[in-house]
């Protein structure tokens, strides 16, 4: 079984493209589209890495990240934030709350794959 990545993203076609891309890269991909139940899904799915959209229905990615980092169990989970807001204050806020990396939409597929490989380190499927 490969390493698990959870994509919390409400845009169906972005999810479908990333799902294809990361599956090809060896990841076991799960998806979730609702911000208000994202923490429960993380607890259930127990991913090795989390890709978290900033703007989600129900709850923002920043709020989810804040609560996630308050839980000892998830304080070291690598998190890649995705957002359509290119403003530096959003990036700074995400990094201050404990995001490990940040990509602004529209990103390139290569950027996503490379960033996840760097964040995962030994957890990346190709490393095992």
């Amino acid at each position, binding site marked *: 079984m490969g390493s698990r990545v959870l994509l919390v993203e409400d*845009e169906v076609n972005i999810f479908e*493209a*990333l799902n294809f891309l990361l599956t090809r890269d060896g990841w076991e991909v799960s998806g979730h589209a609702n911000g208000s139940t994202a923490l429960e899904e993380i607890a259930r799915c127990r991913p090795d890495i989390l890709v978290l959209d900033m703007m989600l229905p129900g709850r923002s990615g920043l709020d989810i990240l804040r609560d996630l980092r308050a839980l000892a169990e998830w304080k070291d989970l690598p998190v890649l934030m995705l957002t359509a807001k290119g403003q530096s204050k959003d990036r700074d806020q995400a990094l201050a709350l404990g995001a490990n990396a940040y990509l602004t939409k529209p990103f*390139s597929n290569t950027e996503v794959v490379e960033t996840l490989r760097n964040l995962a380190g030994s957890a990346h499927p190709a490393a095992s």
Partner: protein
Amino acid sequence: MSAKPKAPTRQALTGSRIRERRMSLGLKQSDLAGAVEISASYLNLIEHNKRRIGGKLLLDLARALKVEPARLTEGMDATLSDMLKAAANDGARSFGPKPETARIDELAGRFPGWTGLIAEQRKRIAALEAAVEGLQDRMGHDPVLAGAMHEVLSTVAAIRSTSDILVAEPDLDANWRGRFHRNLHEEAERLSTSATALLAHFEGLGRQKGGVQTPQELIEAGFDAVGHHFPQIETGGAGAIPDVLDSMEMLTDLGARDLAEARLRLYADDAQRLPLAPFLEMAAEHDFDPQPLLPMAGGDVALVLRRLANLPAGGAEAVPEFGLAVCDAAGALVFRRRINAFSIPRFGPGCALWPLYHAFSRPMVPEAANLEVPEGGLFRAWAVSQPTRSAGFGTAPVVEATMLVRALEDGQAPDQSPVPVGPGCQLCPRETCPARRAGSVLT
């Protein structure tokens, strides 16, 4: 060190204005001298500012030159003069010599049409700059715009990722290829819709801003159009406000309409507390001096100052022209009634030496002072700072300062030495002013 030559005062330039006007009409010196029954050599002395004139000769010259006498003695109004000076000093210039700011009076005398055009364009540029600033601020905090931009960027992200896959995977399974083609089509449709919505939102913003003016300017234009007097509200009270608002066609911005309504409610309240007829009668009896009128208002100084500024012009009582400036405790001018010779800036703060600002140091204590503007004009000013509403326990009061200004008539000696003031540092030529906090564009 040599002393800097003193620039001629506005009044000292009467002769220059007579000369400029005569030349613009194509009159010979001897023709004009003959028309007013003086010698050509005496007119020559007058035109070179070597003889001061007044009385009948001034009136005769003004009549012969087909202008108002005040145009010869005072030149253009201070606001126009300030706008021309600001226009001359705006930004970096890429060609031509520096504008001759010392000869603005001459320019206005010889080419009044061009002068008005320059001032109008300067006003328009300043208004456009303010509108751009307002739009930038609005764009940064507009939730509709933020949502629309998120939609567009998300759609572009989906299109980019999907098309990258289609290009990078030439041997893609037919099922996946079909799904990605459908996804691309969906996202293209969505992008078309969201881009159209975004454009419509921008167009809506443009219409709401009404082109070039800030809400405060729109309100002041509405008040200026009726001389700051609303007979409907004087007789009908607050119930007349909706009709008055509907009649102010310039209030194209919803924010401006709300602000105007608040200002008119204050007017209605003032009119109810100090009804027009007895107030006007008492004011006329005391030559429109605020002091004897205070008992009528129960000591509410700001109320008296506002009511004087709202009196109707043109009646038998000969109400003088009043200027009014109101600023909040942060120093921002929130309402203005301008008069010609006393310049109140359109944007930014006024002069720190105005009693308007000094009043904040002694709340509830009325202040009165004589003021001298850089061009030499004398004014009487009354000011007070007081809460706009009662404060509750633990609630900070909202304080505003109000200043009423009136020109001192020719020959009327001030009862105390005038304070040298200006229109605000940027447009003030007083280089050594102790209150200067910013450089002047005039130096």
